[in-house]
């Protein structure tokens, strides 16, 4: 995905509508700079995050996926982020088996007031993934359904 020589990772972000998406907004309104590597998608709650989404993003060529929600105990839907944690742990196990390094898929918290945390998180993750290099995974892995879908 790199336009010029240097590798610029593409990170797909899943931000919950109430905390982390607003944190991102805050980072914007307070003009906190961070690398343009994150492409974010808004979901109502990290509890909505279907692990399939993460796989799809990686399969489509993302070098990393950042999931961000409200701090534990501060979920707008009371406990959605706890559900997210559980699913995340399982998902990570699966990804390890598929050879995806832990650093590529991360789960973090930022309250609506934590624009700084948000910006820092994106910056840090970008560096970590730069260190890992691009994820070559999609080329040698095609979703079976995808295949039959091609024929159709």
């Amino acid at each position, binding site marked *: 995905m790199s336009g010029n020589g240097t590798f610029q990772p*593409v990170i797909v972000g899943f931000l919950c509508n109430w905390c982390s998406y607003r944190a*991102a907004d805050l980072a914007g309104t307070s003009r906190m700079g961070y690398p*343009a590597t*994150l*492409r974010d998608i808004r979901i109502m709650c990290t*509890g909505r995050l279907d692990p*399939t989404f993460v796989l799809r993003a990686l399969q*489509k060529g993302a070098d990393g996926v950042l999931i961000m929600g409200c701090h534990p105990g501060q979920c707008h839907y009371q406990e959605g982020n706890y559900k997210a944690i559980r*699913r995340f742990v399982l998902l990570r196990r699966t990804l390890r088996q598929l050879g995806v390094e832990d650093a590529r898929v991360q789960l973090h918290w930022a*309250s609506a007031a934590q624009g700084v945390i948000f910006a820092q998180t994106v910056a840090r993750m970008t560096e970590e993934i730069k260190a890992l290099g691009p994820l070559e995974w999609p080329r040698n892995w095609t979703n079976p359904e995808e295949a039959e879908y091609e024929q159709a």
Partner: protein
Amino acid sequence: MTEIREQSEKRVGVYICHCGHNIAGTVDVEHVAEWAYNLPHVVISRDNRFMCASTGQEQVEEDIKEYELTHVVVASCSPHMHEKTFRGACARAGLNPYLFEMANIREHASWVHPNDKDGATNKAKALVSAAVYRVLQHEPLTPMEVEIRPETLIVGGGIAGIQAALEIASAGYHVYMVEREPSIGGHMAQLDKTFPTLDCSACILTPKMFDVGSHPNITMMTYAEVESVDGYVGNFTVKVRKKSKHVREDQCTGCGTCWEKCPVKVIDTEYEASLGYRKAIYRPFPQAVPKYPVIDIENCTYYKTGKCKACEKFCQRNAIDFDMPDEVVEIQVGNILLATGYELFDCRRIPQYGYGRLENVYTSMEFERLVNATGPTEGKITLRDGETMPKSVAIIHCVGSRDKNHNEYCSAICCMSSLKFAHLVMEKTGAEVYQFYIDMRPIAKGYEEFYHRILEEGANFIRGRVSEITDAAHVPEEEGKLIVIAEDTLIGRQRRVPVDMVILSAALEPRHDAAEVAHLFSVGCGNTGFFTERHPKLDPVATMTEGVYIAGACQGPKDIPDTVAQGAAAAARILSVISQRRVELEPVRASIDESRCSGCRICNNMCPYGAIAYLEDLAVSRVNPALCKGCGTCVAACPSQIITGAHFTFDQLMAEIDGIMVDVHTAAPVRVGNQPIKVGEA
């Protein structure tokens, strides 16, 4: 560019906003617009200086009509800013507002990548493409409507609750006011004078309290607490426990014989801030509303020993009832206002300030009682011995505020109340006053002027956070005094100021049970523990839960003017909802395809709102759309993927992912893996 494409069933219009220079300054908007034109089903793609301006909105409306657009994408600011605006535009042009999608290329692109124009532009492309892919999957939705009950529940009888109650009641709607203490009035009833005008707190509050007590549209429940809340905006069912007062209000005249005769003297930790005494049967203060006393069974001799009953003996109306049980009442309301106020920081948490150890160290609230004509000294400012007048007084700002060891935030009222204390001390005792402050923040109307007035009156201002208050004298003139040690940061030297009395301007903190209350009404608590408003600027009194509002210090530290303003604001919001008779709820709701539901019940306990019920007879689960808040946890959990989260469906999000991953470096968008547009069925 406005050339038209061959007909196709889906016809998308894309609009890229310059937002003046805010976006165009960093993102190459013309290029993005051109590029977006090649995205699937896009029949028109424009860039515009200000999309939110009437011209921008009219443009959308015209195009919808002229080019028969079936879907609209606007790339501008955050949806939290203008999603409603553009949905309105679509609706006016006869397009279902939910066939619209927004791409946030300002907060999430131009503003955060000012030094990376290419990066920002590419990101903008990705976000626009994501929005286009997503919107193609959108279906028309209709917000669901619910009836609004006209009654309102107000939790907390402080000045915020009182203000709101009177506004709503006088508009002709019924209000239930639930107050934990035996009387309404809250902290304001304890205060002496109020800044900056120094009018007497009781004089301005008491009439309002009386109005609440006597208003036909207000049902007061004092000495009561909310036990449970069910339902949703417009239709809440609330259980309230009315703790037994052991006094029959229908009989009692509030004559006061009972507490005169009561033999038990208790330190009054509530109203007198532990500076004075009350009896075991008591009325918090003379102007209390309601005027009836309650029996404090922790301290009542009868409840301890089974003997006494002095109050009962002397009550002519025999209003005392030792066997009176608690009462749980159930009420139906359409809206709820939380006005539960604050608690004062426990100054013993800063031992170096000596509160509780050095007897002439007072808290701000203790001083309010001390200087108050109804207080334990009838307004005489004295040391703890109750006689000696102080010749010098130090007032310490930011006690427990602006301190990461306790509360990081600024408590907002302390600067002004400290100035007020300075004035009262100088006026009543002529003592020398020292103000120790970090920064002076008299920020509202008339406040700065008040500051100047106190300067004029000759108070000493020392810029430095106090390090320690000690009785360890080093020189004779310090003997027997409290020595306040601080760095006078304006001269860069350590100073030891011996004084007779110290007043600690204690921080305002959330109620100790704020978290439980928040959970009970399913509103959020921020990091500081105060309730979270829907939007810090544009929606300060609403919460994320429809039908539940907040006002006053429970939302954050606030002085009286701001608190009253919020109380009134919340009332206005509630009245506008009531007068609509019905409210529209965002159609972001889950629904179960019962024909395919296996009845595994996994979703049932996923739902934090108990919105999913299992129908024994049909052996399937069903979502109650009115209870569902649309978080989507169940959607993600359903093993057979037959729960649909409207507006955040599987297809929509998969499409968005595919869209966001389109190669943005090519001149025209290239779809990775060349799938047909109809993505998201994997």
